[in-house]
């Protein structure tokens, strides 16, 4: 029964990882940009939530109403102001610029909030649980997983049923021709980054409620998100969710064997997928 429990908890944990990964997957899918600062932006969103919660005393989940638009605006400005200048055939500029951003965000948070771990207090929901058979499932992990499914379903719907989604797919397919058809590529990219950081804000708030975080927590969030994207296959958002689940399950199973193996087991699952099926389990586009 312990193993079933680990399996279920891992699946729910995978929801959080899918939230980490969704923004990363979105940005890569639309503009072929890999954002090294992604993890730090997640942590930035957690701190943003913390500030809102401490200032207003509102519930962390309600802080989403502030954090999501704020991060979305930041994303648009970031893309328009800096990242659009790096786009092109050369992969070095976006990589190094986002790497620089990552260092700046980390140290700015360190300056503003010290290295002490912080956490958002969400009250009763943190410890609430429901019994399913002999399993005890936390309400918060279930909520996180449901949110991940909801976010991915919404993104998927947006991609295939709205004008904005069509614009995203158009610039993703061919930037120059999309431009000729009257789409302003810079504006579309700005919107894409805004959307991605909106999702990142959701990830950051759930992260901040679930565990404690500190300014250096971004690196491992980036790596988990990245692993979920690669395991699931590039360009497939539902695949990303599956990737997150596989990563989460590997980690809880690893932790079951020995707590020291938790993170390592996740990395090993990633390497095994890379060795056996480098295109990921459910690929849609070739990267």
């Amino acid at each position, binding site marked *: 029964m312990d193993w079933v429990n680990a399996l279920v908890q891992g699946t729910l944990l995978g929801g959080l990882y899918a939230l980490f990964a969704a923004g990363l997957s979105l940005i890569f899918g639309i503009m072929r*940009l*890999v954002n*090294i600062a992604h993890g730090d932006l997640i942590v930035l969103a957690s701190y943003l939530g913390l500030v809102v919660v401490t200032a207003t005393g509102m519930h962390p989940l309600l802080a989403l109403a502030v954090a999501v638009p704020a991060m979305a605006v930041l994303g648009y400005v970031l893309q328009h102001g*800096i990242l659009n*200048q*790096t786009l092109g055939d050369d*992969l*070095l*500029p*976006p*990589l*190094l*610029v986002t*790497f*620089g*951003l*990552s*260092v*700046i965000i*980390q*140290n*700015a948070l*360190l*300056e503003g909030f010290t290295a002490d771990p912080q956490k958002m207090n969400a009250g009763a929901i943190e410890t609430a649980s429901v019994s399913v058979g002999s399993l005890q499932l936390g309400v918060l992990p279930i909520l996180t997983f449901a949110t991940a499914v909801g976010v991915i379903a919404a993104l998927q719907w947006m991609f295939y049923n709205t004008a904005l989604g069509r614009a995203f797919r158009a610039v993703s397919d061919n930037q120059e021709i999309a431009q000729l058809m009257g789409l302003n590529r810079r504006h579309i990219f700005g919107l894409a980054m805004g959307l991605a950081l909106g999702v990142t804000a959701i990830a950051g708030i759930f992260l901040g409620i679930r565990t404690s975080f500190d300014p250096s927590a971004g*690196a*491992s969030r*980036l*790596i988990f998100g*990245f*692993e979920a994207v*690669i395991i699931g296959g590039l360009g497939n958002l539902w695949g990303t969710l599956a990737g997150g689940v596989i990563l989460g399950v590997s980690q809880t199973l690893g932790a079951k064997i020995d707590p*020291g*193996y938790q*993170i*390592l087991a996740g*990395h*090993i699952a*990633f*390497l095994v997928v*890379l*060795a056996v099926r*480098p295109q990921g389990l459910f690929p849609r586009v070739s*990267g």
Partner: protein
Amino acid sequence: MKVTRTSPAARIAAIFGLLVLIILAAGPYWAGRADMRLMSEIFLYLALASLWNLMAGYAGLVSVGQQAFVGFGGYMLFALTIFGGLSPVVAIAGAAVLGSLIAVPVAVLIFRLRGAYFAIGTWVMAEVFRLTFAQVSALGGGSGSSLPVGIVRSMADGRAAREALSYWLALGMAVVVIAAVYFFLRSRQGLALTAIRDNELAAGSLGIDIWRTKFVVYIVTAGLTSMVGALIFLQKLRISPDAAFSVNDWTAFVIFIVVIGGIGTLEGPIIGTLIFFALRETLADLGSTYLMVLGAVAIVIMLKAPKGVWGLIRSRYDFELFPLSYRVHHDDTDK
């Protein structure tokens, strides 16, 4: 008309460089203890930067996981001296060999990832290394271990002699790395590498085995990076997983050095290292603000002058200190 690689500027640079090298080699006779430590650190960063530049600037392999090999080399120094009973100097060479060997399966796996995904893949690898070494209780597990006094003493008689030896090893490492990169780039393999950098598709159609060329660069770089790692931790005398596999210390700083100095040139890492240490020595008191400044400088350089400081100099005065490219000389008689 004739085509040559060398130029008067390069010849002057060679003579000047030799003079500087002689002065530096005499360091233990004129420099204080603190200066020698700082210079050793500069030499080792110069070596790391030149190696990263060879991978990213020439082979297009942008790695943010070179700390895997720095840490691995450091740990091999400890393992080979403590359990293998080797002398530190032999262990450093051993670290290089083992570093190249471990890089083979690593490369086979992560070469499946392209571009930026390759970059994060190397980072995952470094994390795997860190978590694995944290599990090895014989090497101190998560809290790390110190190099036993007996092994340190066995290097040379007396503290001054030990410090001189460790200084010379660091200087030698920098010289070996720069010379190796220079001669590699001038060789047939180097020409293939330059062709790949300029246009991968065209290079492939000319019969260059792209995968193999990049693979060789990765393996050689890994071996030399492990060697630098062994030297770094011979200076520190203490190792722990977090220090050994630190992405900030062994990759972020190195990337900043290369970007600021000028990526894809041999001169860039040298200039970048000097700028980096000048900034560090003047701004280090600012703590995290200093790192923010460094990040901002790197972003501005990448956006406004992607070829770095050396690129700016070179676009103004057309010369190179390391004669790599071919140039045409017009004699008066050709007119």
